[in-house]
C-alpha cells in the first residue's frame, strides 16, 4: 500500500537510470543516511560507537571492496586480509615518514599501494580460475603476513613489530572522540559506497559481470578479460586497502600483522557470501551479521540474567552463530540481500497478494 511505484512516471533517461528508481527507496536511504549522520552521533553510547558501529562501518567498506571482486567479477580472493594490511602499513609509513602528511591523503595513498599489490596478485587470474585462483590469492595473504612481520622497514623499526597511530586530525579537525571517529568512518563509507554503486552500474561494472557470468562469451562480444579482471582487482584492493588503513588507524589505534591474518580474509569472504554476492547493500548486511551478531549472542545471557560461565558463553556463541550461518545459507543461498529484495517484492503487493 505504501510501497508501490504507481504514478511515478519517468520522463527522462536520467530519471530512469538513477540508483533508486522508486521514490520510496530513495527517501528511505536518504533518511537512513541523514539518521546516521545527524541522529546517531547524539543518541549512541560510547560503547556502541567504539565496539559496534565503527568496526561495522569499516568492515562494511572492506566487504564492499571484496564484493566487487568476488560478487561482481567472480574472482574468488582469499587475500583480503593481506590487502588490508598493505593499506594499513603503507598509510602508516606515509604518515610517519613524510613530515606534515595529512591524514586523508595518507589513507588514500595506503589504498593506492594496496591497489598495486592487488593488481600484482591479480595477474594470475588471467590464467587460472575458481579454486586455483583462491589458492593463488592465498599467497598474497601469506606474503604480506611475512613481509610485515619480517621486513623491519615497514614497521619503522619498532622492536616488537607493532605500530601505532594517534592524534588523528584532518584540516584542523581533531578526530579524537568516538563520535568524531564514527563520523570520519561514515564519511568514507558513504563516499565509497556511492562510488562503488555507480561503478557497478557503469560499463566497467557490466564488463565485470559479463566476465563473471561467462568469460568466453564476454571476450567474444569484445570485452577484454585482462582489462576487466585487473580493474576489478585494482578497485577492489583499493577499497579494501582504505578499509585496512581505517581499521588500523581508527579502530585499533595500534596493530600487528595478526590483526590482518587469514582469519580476517575468511571473515570478509563470509560477510560477502552471507550478505549477498553482487550486492552493495548485501555487504552491509553481511558485515552487520558477522560483526554484531556474535557480540549480541555473547552478551545475551548477561542481559537475560542467566549466570553462565564465560567459556560456556563463548562456546555457545560459536555454536549458535555457526548454526545461524548454515540456516541462512539454506533458506536463502543468495544471501541476506536477496531476502531484502524478496521483502520489497512482497511489500509492493501487500495487502493484496495474488
Amino acid at each position: 500500500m505504501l510501497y508501490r511505484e504507481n504514478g511515478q512516471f519517468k520522463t527522462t533517461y536520467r530519471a530512469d537510470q538513477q540508483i533508486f528508481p522508486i521514490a520510496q527507496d530513495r527517501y528511505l536511504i536518504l533518511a537512513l543516511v541523514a539518521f546516521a549522520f545527524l541522529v546517531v552521533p547524539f543518541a549512541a553510547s560510547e560503547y556502541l560507537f567504539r565496539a559496534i558501529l565503527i568496526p561495522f562501518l569499516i568492515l562494511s567498506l572492506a566487504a564492499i571492496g571484496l564484493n566487487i571482486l568476488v560478487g561482481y567479477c567472480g574472482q574468488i580472493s582469499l587475500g583480503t586480509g593481506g590487502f588490508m594490511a598493505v593499506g594499513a602499513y603503507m598509510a602508516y609509513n606515509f604518515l610517519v615518514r613524510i613530515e606534515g602528511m595529512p591524514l586523508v591523503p595518507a589513507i588514500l595513498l595506503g589504498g593506492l599501494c594496496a591497489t598495486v599489490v592487488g593488481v600484482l596478485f591479480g595477474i594470475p587470474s588471467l590464467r587460472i580460475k575458481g579454486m586455483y585462483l583462491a589458492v593463488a590469492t592465498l599467497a598474497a595473504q601469506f606474503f604480506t603476513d611475512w613481509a610485515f612481520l619480517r621486513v623491519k622497514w615497514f614497521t619503522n623499526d619498532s622492536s616488537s613489530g607493532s605500530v601505532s597511530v594517534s592524534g588523528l586530525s584532518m584540516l584542523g579537525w581533531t578526530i579524537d572522540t568516538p563520535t568524531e571517529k564514527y563520523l570520519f568512518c561514515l564519511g568514507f563509507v558513504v563516499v565509497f559506497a556511492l562510488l562503488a554503486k555507480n561503478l557497478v552500474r557503469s560499463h566497467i561494472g557490466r564488463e565485470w559481470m559479463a566476465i563473471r557470468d561467462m568469460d568466453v562469451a564476454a571476450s567474444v562480444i569484445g570485452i577484454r578479460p585482462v582489462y576487466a579482471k585487473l580493474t576489478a582487482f585494482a578497485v577492489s584492493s583499493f577499497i579494501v586497502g582504505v578499509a585496512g588503513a581505517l581499521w588500523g588507524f581508527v579502530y585499533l589505534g595500534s596493530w600487528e600483522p595478526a590483526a590482518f591474518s587469514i582469519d580476517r580474509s575468511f571473515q570478509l569472504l563470509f560477510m560477502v557470501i552471507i550478505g549477498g554476492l553482487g550486492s552493495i547493500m548485501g555487504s552491509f548486511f553481511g558485515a552487520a551479521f558477522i560483526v554484531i551478531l556474535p557480540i549480541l549472542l555473547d552478551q545475551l545471557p548477561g542481559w537475560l540474567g542467566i549466570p553462565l560461565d564465560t567459556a560456556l558463553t563463548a562456546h555457545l556463541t560459536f555454536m549458535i552463530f555457526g548454526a545461524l550461518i548454515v540456516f541462512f545459507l539454506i533458506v536463502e543461498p543468495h544471501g541476506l540481500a536477496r531476502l531484502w529484495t524478496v521483502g520489497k517484492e512482497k511489500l509492493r503487493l501487500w495487502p493484496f497478494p495474488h
Partner: protein
Amino acid sequence: MKLKSIALSAAVLAAGLGALVGTPAFAQAKEQFFPVLVYRTGAYAPNGVPFANGYVDYLKYVNAKGGINGVKITYEECETAYATDKGVECYERLKGKGATVVQPLSTGITFALTEKAPGDKIPLITSGYGRADTVDGLAFKWNFPLLGTYWTGADILIQHIAKKEGGFDKLKGKKISLVYHDSPYGKEPIAALQERSKMHGFELNLLPVAHPGVEQKSTWLQIRQSRPDYVFLWGWGVMNSAALKEAVATGYPREKMYGVWWSGAEPDVKDVGANAKGYTALAMQHGAEPNSKIVQDILKEVHAKGQGTGPKDEVGQVLYMRGLIASMMGIEGVKRAQERFGKGKVMTGEQVRWGLENLNLDQKKLDALGFAGVMRPVSTSCADHLGSSWARLHTWDGAKWNFSSDWYQADDAILKPLVKASADKYLAEKKLSRREPADCQS
C-alpha cells in the same frame, strides 16, 4: 517465503534491541568494578584458564574478607580469545560499566589499549607482559608493567647463564637461539638480548614460530643443525608444550632450554611429563606456591564454601598464582588510592592510577596479606612503574616445579638507556612530551 521475512525482521529487531539494551549501566555506589579480560577458549586457553581462575578467586577472597575497606568488589569476565579486536571490544564493553583498572593479559591487546587508556583515564596493569618501555612512567603515565617486563626477564636469563658458565666473559662465542612466538609478545625481548649479545659477544639466533605455535618442525631442524649452546623459549599456550615435544624428538637437552615466565607453568610441561625433566624457566617472583598462606586462606574462604572458580587441585599452581598476584596488585592500587582519597570510598581510574604509582608493598604488608615467601617487596614511583625486577628460576623435575636459583635483579645500567631510547622514540612518533615533575603530584 513468509519464514524468510519473519527471520529477517527478527534479525533486524534483535539488532535494534541490542543497540538499546547495550547502553552501559554504571556501577552502583560503594562497589568497585573490576573488568576481567580472560581467555577461556582458543589456542591459549590452557594457560589463560588458570590465570583467570586465580584472578577471580582473589577478588572473591577479598569480598569474603569484607571488600576493600568495606567497598565491595564487583567484576565481570569478558572472553578475548587472545585476539586484539575482541580484546578492544571487551575493553569498551567493560569500560562503560565503570572499570577503574584493566589487565589485558595479552601483549597485543596491551599495545592497542596503550593508545586508549590515556583518553579514558583508566590505568593498565601489565604484570610481566606488555611493552617493556612502559617502565618509564614519565612517558607512559597510564601503563604499569609491575614486577617485570620481557626485557628484565631476558636480562635475568643471560645473567643466569653467565653465572652458570662462570662469568660474562665466558659467553663470548656461545650460540643462543631464541625460539619465540611471532607476535609483539615474542619479539619484545629481542632488543634487550641484542644489547647483551653486543656486550658479551655471544651469537643470537632468532627463530620465530607462527601463531599458534603447533608447527615447529622446521624450527627444531634448524636447532639440530646449528646446535646452539642454549635455547630460550618465548612461547605461550600450546606453543610451549609443542616446543618441548620437539626438543625431545630432536634430542636437544632440556637442561639447556630456558623459558620465560609465560613458558614455565604446569600446562606447558604436563603433556611432556618426565621427558621435560631439567627444563628451566623464569619464575616471576613466585613459582607454584600451594603451601603459602594466601593459598590456604583462599582454599578456606572461597573453595571450602563452594565458591571456587576452577578445580581445587589447581589452586596454587604457577599461572594461578600469577593471576592471583595480578589481581592483588590491582586491589592494592585501589587500597593505596583510598589512603589518600578517602577510606571506604569508590575510587576513580585517575585515583587508582595515583595509587599504583605510589605503591609501597613492604615485607610487613606482604606478610599481612599472606604473600610471605611468594614475592618480594614492590615500590613504585612516578618515574618507575616497574616496582621490582627480582626474579628467580625454577626447574621441572618431571612432576613439579622446584626453585633452582637465587634471586636475580635485572641490570638497570643496561636496561635504563634502552627503556629511555624506546620511550623517546614512542613520544617523538606521537609528538608527545614527557610529564613535568609537577604532574607527579597529581
